[in-house]
């Protein structure tokens, strides 16, 4: 099981490195300007990160929606639908750089880790409100303003910090907006040590979008009820606090595979929607 656990971190690390392969940028403070930035990456990875070689889908979607002359964002929305229709939230579990950051932070020992709490599931609806209000409605109303990126996105704040380390003049222009975003990033970092993936659970609009598509994506989780002995080992190990034996394609499931690895009767597996009966 330990070996399989290791695989997730390895895949996450490789995905993060590939999406941030402009290593020179970390030293020069210059962001990548090549053609690969025409394509959005599946996970949350700010395009202002000095290493980023692709575009952030949420940032690109807001920019497409907030232009002076409204054009339906066929391309960005098409890419998001494509990733979601094939992978669902497996993007969160394996491909998202900010998911990796939170997973690593959660490995820091803390006396009392919190798996779930009263109102947890209700609070998780917040990400759908953020998706609709901050990513879709407000950018259409407030022209040229990517509202989610401007006020909430911690990935952008991290990108700003990385840029400032390589170009220290940036520190002098950081003001109250940066202070606000830095507070949010700090809260997410500290909370990640106690609660697994708080940003994915409560705030991420990308997770909300992919979560809606979990049930119809090509990649699926399958629970063979004839093999399941109802021991609930899968539910106990799940960082997202879902019970795979009841609903293995829950909107909150990030398909990390921990339930599959821990299942004593091998009832849970990865499958595809065309194999499902």
């Amino acid at each position, binding site marked *: 099981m330990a070996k399989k656990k290791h695989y997730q971190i390895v895949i996450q690390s490789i995905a993060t490195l590939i999406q941030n392969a402009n290593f020179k940028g970390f030293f020069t403070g210059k962001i990548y300007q090549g053609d690969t*930035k025409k394509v959005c990456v599946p996970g949350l990875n700010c395009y202002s990160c000095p290493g980023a070689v692709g575009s952030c889908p949420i940032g690109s979607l807001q920019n497409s929606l907030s232009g002076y002359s409204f054009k339906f964002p066929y*391309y960005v929305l098409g890419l998001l639908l*494509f990733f979601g229709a094939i992978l669902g939230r497996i993007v969160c579990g394996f491909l998202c750089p900010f998911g990796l950051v939170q997973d690593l932070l959660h490995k820091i020992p803390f006396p009392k880790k919190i798996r779930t709490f009263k109102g947890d599931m209700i609070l998780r609806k917040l990400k759908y409100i953020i998706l609709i209000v901050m990513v879709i409605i407000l950018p259409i109303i407030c022209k040229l303003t990517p509202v989610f990126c401007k006020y909430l996105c911690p990935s952008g704040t991290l990108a700003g910090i990385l840029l400032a380390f390589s170009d220290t003049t*940036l520190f002098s222009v950081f003001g109250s907006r940066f202070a606000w975003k830095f507070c949010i990033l700090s809260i997410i970092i500290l909370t990640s040590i106690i609660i697994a993936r708080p940003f994915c659970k409560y705030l991420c609009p990308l997770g909300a979008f992919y979560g809606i598509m979990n049930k119809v994506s090509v990649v699926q989780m399958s629970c063979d009820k004839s093999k399941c002995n109802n021991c609930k080992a899968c539910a106990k190990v799940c960082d997202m606090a879902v019970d795979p034996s009841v609903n293995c394609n829950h909107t909150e499931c990030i398909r990390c595979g921990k339930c599959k690895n821990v299942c004593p009767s091998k009832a849970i597996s990865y499958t595809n929607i065309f194999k499902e009966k």
Partner: protein
Amino acid sequence: MKYKKISSVLLLCLSVSMIGVGIYQNQPDSVLSKAIRICLECVGIG
């Protein structure tokens, strides 16, 4: 399950069609033009 499979195929077709329409309208260039400049809002300056 049959409806889920149909929905999955339809979504895939829709997404590929949308990407095609977007490319036809040169939308990847708009994405690139924004992504090659530092997004001041994103990093907390603008």
